[in-house]
């Protein structure tokens, strides 16, 4: 399978690198906002630079397009790729608005191409173990779950994150992982209540959301771009027969210290698995697409998780409890 990647930020670079060495997969073309931006990654993975991202969507040497651009541009490229008959792997969130996301899903269904959405947490072993322990009753019936996910104010690194019209802020960019995880673990919530602050230029963006499922559990989620020490994740999952706890800060097998104090924090924790969850995600998506199977997180799943993120924003903006219908 020949892969074209649009976008060379954190996600695009990660996907281009992670695809290296996968069986029957080759990254053939890389595009970014400018050819200069695409060049370093293209050189590293020995792919050609496509100077025009829209041209990559219909390029003859591409079977699947990875859309890893700023969020508000996902729809333009995903729809163009689908119309050209290419399979699509789109980073989360699927799009900035519900209308855009629905248009992507429709375009891919009409063109009968696969659409996968990058909810990569479903490929993280600590979250998979939790899913298993919920499913097999090890923890008993779920009662209450708290999930946290934070990073430094990422707008200081890439300005488009600062613009809520482009990124959707911390809710759509970061908290969405745990909103998707809550749906994956427990199904669809019954109602949503949230609070958020968004400070604009400083990049500080912080939100909390409470999801109530019809019977149980209650889920509380924090999404933070106020973790100045850098990326971290955690959860506490309490059932009526036990509790499972994850804290990335206490889970690192090694810690690095350097003279001169802390510089700017790393964007993500150092990988400490033989195969990173990002690579597992790609391998699974490419294998399913090659077999003609539905991706694990398909367009409809991506759309529902986006809609839940939009409900969080709606509750935070209105101060109202939002009744949730998936």
């Amino acid at each position, binding site marked *: 399978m020949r892969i074209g990647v649009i976008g060379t930020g954190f996600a695009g670079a990660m996907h281009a690198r992670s695809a290296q060495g996968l069986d029957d997969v080759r990254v053939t073309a890389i595009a970014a906002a400018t050819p200069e931006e695409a060049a370093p990654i293209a050189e590293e993975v020995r792919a050609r630079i496509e100077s025009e991202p829209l041209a990559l969507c219909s390029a003859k040497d591409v079977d699947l397009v990875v859309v890893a651009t700023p969020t508000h541009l996902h729809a333009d490229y995903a729809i163009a790729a689908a119309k050209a008959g290419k399979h699509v792997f789109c980073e989360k969130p699927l799009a900035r608005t519900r209308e855009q996301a629905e248009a992507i899903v429709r375009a891919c269904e009409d063109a009968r191409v696969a659409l996968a959405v990058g909810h990569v947490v479903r490929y993280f072993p600590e979250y998979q173990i939790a899913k298993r322990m919920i499913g097999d009753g090890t923890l008993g*019936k779920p009662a*209450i779950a708290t999930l946290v996910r934070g990073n430094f104010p990422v707008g200081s690194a890439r300005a488009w994150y600062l613009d809520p019209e482009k990124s959707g802020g911390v809710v759509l960019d970061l908290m969405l992982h745990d909103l998707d995880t809550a749906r994956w673990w427990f199904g669809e919530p019954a109602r949503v209540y949230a609070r958020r602050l968004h400070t604009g230029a400083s990049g500080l963006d912080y939100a909390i959301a*409470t999801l109530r499922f019809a019977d*149980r559990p209650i889920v*509380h989620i924090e999404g933070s771009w106020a973790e100045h020490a850098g990326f971290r994740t955690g959860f506490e999952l309490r059932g009526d*027969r036990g*509790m499972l706890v994850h804290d990335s800060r206490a889970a690192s097998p090694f810690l690095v210290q350097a003279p001169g104090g802390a510089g700017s924090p790393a964007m993500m924790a150092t990988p400490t698995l033989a195969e990173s969850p990002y690579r597992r995600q790609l391998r699974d998506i490419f294998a399913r697409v090659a077999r003609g199977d539905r991706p694990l997180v398909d367009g409809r799943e991506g759309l529902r998780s986006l809609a839940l993120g939009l409900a969080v924003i709606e509750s935070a903006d209105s*101060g*109202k409890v939002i009744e949730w219908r998936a």
Partner: protein
Amino acid sequence: MAGVKLRVGLISFAHVHAAGVARTLRALDQVDFIGVHDEDAARGRAAAKEHGARWHESLDGLLAASDAVVIESTNADHRRYTEAAAARGVHVLTDKPIATTVADGKAMIDTCARAGVELGIAFPVRSSPAVIALREAIAGGMLGTIRAVRAANPGQYPGRWFGDKKAAGGGAVMDHTVHAADAIRWLLADEVMRVHAELGSFVYGLDVEDCGILTLDLASGAFASIDCSWSRPQTFPTWGGVTLHVVGDKATVDIDVFRQALTHYDDTAGRAKLVGWGDDLNTRMIGDFVDAILARRRVPIDGEAGLRALEVAIAAYRSAEMRRPVDIAAVRA
């Protein structure tokens, strides 16, 4: 004033905190631990013996011998014991929550004010050196404007009467909300204006809730959440904990009040246990109360603070019932 001691009595061993309070009263230099009364005479007599204190069969007898009392009864009994003490001119330190209803809490404040006795509320989180340091950092502007707080006071289900709605006034919300609500008010010098809550009775099969997430809007425009759940399993290495995640414009701070602990892998118990080595918060809190009375100052944590925190818990119950946020003013009247 050197050598002057405050004569302090302890009322009731109904509460899980009572034994620790008795040890503290015995240990404090400035306290003369005058004795114990308990509505359960057998329990009180045994506890008095265990802690080397005099047993008082009659409440009046204990009050007559005391300058101040600490109340460790059920929540519902706080009012009657407080009123009895005030009638005798005896100062009161009661465990939290101040009462089970806003009306009871108000009556206690009014009665003590009229009698000219102090009414103190046991919020030991305010005695944590880490929390005090955070308060100073906030007051000094080191965090900038505070925008959000995520607080958690999760614990194990305490058993006894804590799941009895009449005696406790509710479940996990009544037991654990008030610590975090008071800490937020005190740290930020702010007031809670609106409360949303999702509650559930999921773990212990109780008539009261054992799970709860509260979302608070504060007068300053900041928001906060409180996890008050009895979510810690019986196999958890300690009773629970208190954590605060505070987001300011200039810095984000994490406080884990009971982080100073060793892990004891106990083959006898068949599980691991945490062994705290931080300051004993009860000793600091009761010491500060006693010092204030001896110096004829107002007590550091008064009935008003207790009532404000109780209002948050009461509003949480109403919000969960109505499935929408509730203004604190609606439960104050």
